[in-house]
Every structure is written in structure tokens, then in C-alpha cells.
């Protein structure tokens, strides 16, 4: 199964019955899959007139208390930014998938991780975060999609799958099992008053600055719980590591190959792979800084996550970046060279 299709099927198994999207490469398989499946299971697939309309349709379904998703790729996600901000303001849960391509602007259609900063900083105006999940296999495309729905409901926030064109197009065996949807209070939803309760209002407007401040502070209390309880990462060959590679998604797969090759040469190198990009695995990285003398991020961008690594380890160790951009994927050889260079103590920035 293709990564994009795994996302779509996992969403259905997670109870999502509404999908809205606008065609854009390289994520169109998500929409195509939904277009086929939704009518057969009593769900709703609707091709919207724009990414803006799609995210606002998501806003509508989320307001009604149902699980809902949209997917797009980088330029389309920028268009959805407005809706993401409003959904954060209105505390609406939903799942948004970004199968990234190179940017800025129209950029290219090859794989990229250059929306890292956009995704991990909310991506639009105002005080808010998205819960950002970064799959590194087709199985994780499915698993994190299901998890994303659960966490979105639990914390009343939008979760984002931050994938890339490679992950979307990659074919791997995948198991997707229907699962029980956790109980979740949605008494806030717009279901009609049935003349039995006061009206519910879904809204992000507050004319009183103290009121708005209170709502933002409350939201960040929820974010604090997310940072405390929902950090996910993989530590690979880190037990005795002296060099720590940090990479997510496709970059982590490339990095693993390079790490294994370097290990063959006796270099003590390991990988920390953030699975949640927000919340970022700060604590494991800081702990790694006790033993690891150097850090290397591998990224498909000009070096974005590198700043978060420096912050996480409080700049205690040098952090290099091994990166390619514009849709180019760093090769295992390039990562290997970076590891060997770091081992010799050179090239640190």
C-alpha cells in the first residue's frame, strides 16, 4: 500500500467519515482513495473549490463534533493557515496531512521537509500550536494518523501528519486494524439545542483582551500537558553513542543506513528520531548531550530543526547539519561523510 493510501484507510478506521480537499501533488492519492471509499461507507468525500474552503469545511464538521480531515501539500497548507488558526482559536480537533514538497512559492513537487518551521510554530497568526507527527514508514503513516485523531480529540487541537513526497509515494506492507475510538466529551459541539440546553457557540473572537488572554493561557495549559505526556521518539543505537544524529521521516531512514555503515567502521553513532515534532523530544536530546559530543541533524531543508536541537541541548554541544533542499534527498554517503567528519571533530558550526 502507498503511504498516502495508508493515511486514508487509517483515517477511515479511526472513525473519520468526512474528508475535504483540493488536488495537489504529491498527496492526491489521499483524496482519490477517499473519493472511492467514502460513498461506500456512508461517509462524505467532497472536492472543495480551494484549500481555504476545504479547511473551513473541516471547521464545520469539527464544530459538529465529528472526526474530519483534510490533506494537502506545502503551498496548499499555506492556504489552510487561516483555517488552522481559527480552529486553534475555537479549540477544534481535526487531522491535517501535509505531504511536503519543495518550496518556497510553487517550489517543486519533489520531497521536502521545508515546512518544519511552519508546522512546529503553528503555521499561522496567533498563539497556538499544532500537534505534529512525523511518520518514517508506511506503517507509521497509518498508525500516526489514528493516533493523531485520538490526540486531537483528547486535547481539542488540530493534529498534523508532516510527511513528505517520498513517504506518500512509498509502497510497503501495512496492517491497519479497526480500533476503538476513545470516549471523548464533545458536549461543546453544535448538534442543535434540541430545545434542551443553552446554545453552544464555536468561536475564536473575543473583544475583551483579558478574556482572550485567559483563553490563550488555558490553551497553553493543555499544550503543557501535551509536552509532558505525548512526546514520542525513537532512539536507535544510542546506548553508547558519542555522536547523535537527529532526523525525522525519510531523512531518518537514510540516516540509519549511514549510521550502520559508520558503526561498521567502529564509530559510536546513534539516532534520535523525533516522531512528534511538536512536542519536540527535548528531554531525550538533553540527556544525550551528557554523552554525545556532537550532534548532526539530517534534513531536507536549509536547516530548520537544527535550531530546535540547539535549544533542546541548550547549546552544550556543537550541532552540524547535513542537508539538501529543493526536493533533493541527502544520500547515505553524504550522511556517512558528515558522521565521519564529526568524528574527526571538523566542520562543526
Amino acid at each position, binding site marked *: 500500500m502507498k503511504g498516502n493510501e495508508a493515511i486514508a484507510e487509517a483515517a477511515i478506521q479511526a472513525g473519520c467519515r468526512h474528508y475535504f480537499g483540493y488536488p495537489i501533488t504529491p498527496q492526491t492519492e489521499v483524496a482519490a482513495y477517499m473519493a472511492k471509499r467514502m460513498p461506500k461507507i456512508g461517509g462524505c468525500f*467532497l472536492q472543495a473549490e480551494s484549500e481555504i*474552503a476545504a479547511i473551513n469545511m473541516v*471547521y*464545520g464538521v469539527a464544530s*459538529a463534533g*465529528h472526526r474530519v480531515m483534510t490533506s494537502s501539500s506545502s503551498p496548499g497548507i499555506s492556504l489552510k493557515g*487561516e483555517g488552522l488558526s481559527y480552529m486553534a482559536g475555537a479549540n477544534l480537533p481535526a487531522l491535517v496531512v501535509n505531504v511536503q514538497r519543495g518550496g518556497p512559492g510553487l517550489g517543486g513537487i519533489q520531497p521536502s521537509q521545508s515546512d518544519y518551521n511552519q508546522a512546529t510554530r503553528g503555521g499561522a497568526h496567533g498563539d497556538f500550536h499544532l500537534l505534529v507527527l512525523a511518520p518514517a514508514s508506511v506503517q507509521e503513516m497509518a498508525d500516526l494518523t489514528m493516533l493523531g485523531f485520538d490526540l486531537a480529540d483528547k486535547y481539542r487541537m488540530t493534529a498534523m501528519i508532516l510527511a513528505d513526497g517520498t513517504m506518500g509515494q512509498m509502497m510497503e506492507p501495512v496492517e491497519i486494524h479497526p480500533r476503538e475510538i476513545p470516549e471523548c466529551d464533545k458536549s461543546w459541539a*453544535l448538534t442543535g439545542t434540541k430545545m434542551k440546553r443553552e446554545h453552544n*457557540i464555536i468561536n475564536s473572537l473575543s473583544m475583551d483582551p483579558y478574556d482572550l488572554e485567559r483563553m490563550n493561557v488555558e490553551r497553553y495549559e493543555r499544550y503543557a500537558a501535551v509536552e509532558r505526556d505525548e512526546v514520542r521518539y525513537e532512539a536507535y543505537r544510542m546506548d553508547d553513542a558519542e555522536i547523535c544524529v537527529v532526523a525525522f521521516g525519510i531523512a531518518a531512514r537514510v540516516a540509519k543506513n549511514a549510521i550502520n555503515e559508520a558503526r561498521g567502521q567502529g564509530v559510536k553513532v546513534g539516532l534520535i528520531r523525533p516522531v512528534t515534532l511538536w512536542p519536540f523530544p527535548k528531554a531525550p536530546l538533553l540527556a544525550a548531550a551528557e554523552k554525545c559530543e556532537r550532534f548532526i541533524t539530517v534534513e531536507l531543508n536549509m536547516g530548520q530543526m537544527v535550531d530546535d536541537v540547539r535549544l533542546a541541548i541548550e547549546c552544550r554541544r556543537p550541532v552540524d547539519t547535513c542537508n539538501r533542499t529543493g526536493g533533493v534527498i541527502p544520500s547515505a554517503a553524504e550522511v556517512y561523510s558528515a558522521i565521519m567528519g564529526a568524528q574527526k571533530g571538523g566542520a562543526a558550526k
Partner: protein
Amino acid sequence: MSVVFKKPHALTDAVLHYCPGCTHGIVHRLVAEAIDELGIEGRTIGVAPVGCAVFAYDYFTCDMAEAAHGRAPAVATGLKRADPSNIVFTYQGDGDLASIGTAETVHAAARNENITVIFINNAIYGMTGGQMAPTSLPGQVTQTSPYGRDVNHCGYPVRVCEMLATLDGPEYLERVAVNSVKNVRAAKKAIRKAFQNQIEGKGFSLVEVISSCPTNWGMSPVKALEWIDEKMIPYYPLGVYKDRSAGREEAK
């Protein structure tokens, strides 16, 4: 004696924030009366716009969502698709519906989305203090057209009902006004029909209501209602532009 006129149940008791003489209040009441008469309050969900009517969520007793500027038809689409047994309406001004939200309006109409759209056309941006709207008349003086709307520079007003009537999608399009008792009665009938259509599953029903903005037009409330007759209605003729079920599709 019996009560023959009172505040409808579907309006909350909140004091409207609108300026003195602003006809938003009349249209709010007509919407609420339609909800009352059709007995749908418990399953109605409204979508408020950005603009003067942004606080509409405080004024209707039904469930309410507040949408981003222009996006109300998309939000309403989501709400309606989530539970088609609910009655979903948007309440939007001219900037919201005919400028920033043009795409959402046109495509909700093209899909014949089974929602009700109440469109307030007062030819000006009220909330932001009187700037030129997509529906401002040629020559109309506003804060951002201080020498009068120059059609050679910034183009012509958008006639929403006429534009949407060219689509096969929409079920019902009517333009009404609320500047006289007679016109208010007609507006009430149209708004009620726009909700009735949705109940019957007929599809996209839009009522354009020619309204006044005395504050930003710089007129007394009474004079503003006269200006609707003198200037607005000649440019925006009242009437039914589409009523598919009635077999009347002639564009006026």
C-alpha cells in the same frame, strides 16, 4: 386582547450592538421569526460572518458558529454534511459574501448545497468604518472611495443574485429590501421560503436583503431608507431571480 407582535423566541434577549436605525436588527428578527414559525430552533445551526454581524452568535438562541471572513458557506457545508437533518444558515454581509468569500459563495451555490444564506447588501463595509464594498454604487462616496466610486479605476458593483442565477446549481435566489413595512413583509416571506426549501431538501437558497447603513452612509435612519428606494433598488432590482421548483428561472 392578545399579543400580535413580540420578540421571537429564536432571538436572545441580548441588546443588539448595531447603530441606531441599522436594519440588521430587522433582518435578525425576520430570521428568528422564520425559525420560530417553522419550529426548527432545536435543530438549527447558524454561521456568523466577519463584519458588523460578527456577533450574530450572541443574538440567536440556536447553536452558532463564527466563521473566518467569507468562509461561512464552507463552514455551513461542513455542518450540513456532518448532520443533514440539521438546518444550517449563514448570515453574511456584502464584503464577506461578495468580496473575500466570493469563491465560497459561488461554489456552495453551484453544488446546490442544502443551506440557507441570508445576504445583507448595504453597499458598504460597516464594521471597519465605511469603506467601499463590492456592492458600493458607482459614484458612491466611501472612506476608500472619497471622490466617489470610479468604475474605471476600481470596477463595477457585483450583482450577486444575477450572477448566481446563471448557475444551474442554486434552488432559490431572491432580492428583497427592508426599507418599508411592505418590503419587510416580502422579505419575511422570502426568508421563510429559504428555510422551508432547506427543510424540504431543495437546496441552496439565498435571500439578498437590501439594507441600510445610516452611520456610514452619513444619513439619518429614515433618510437612509429613502436612499434605498432612490439609489439602491434601481441598481439592485427586487424580485425572484431563481426558483427552480416553481419552474421560474427567468433572470429579471
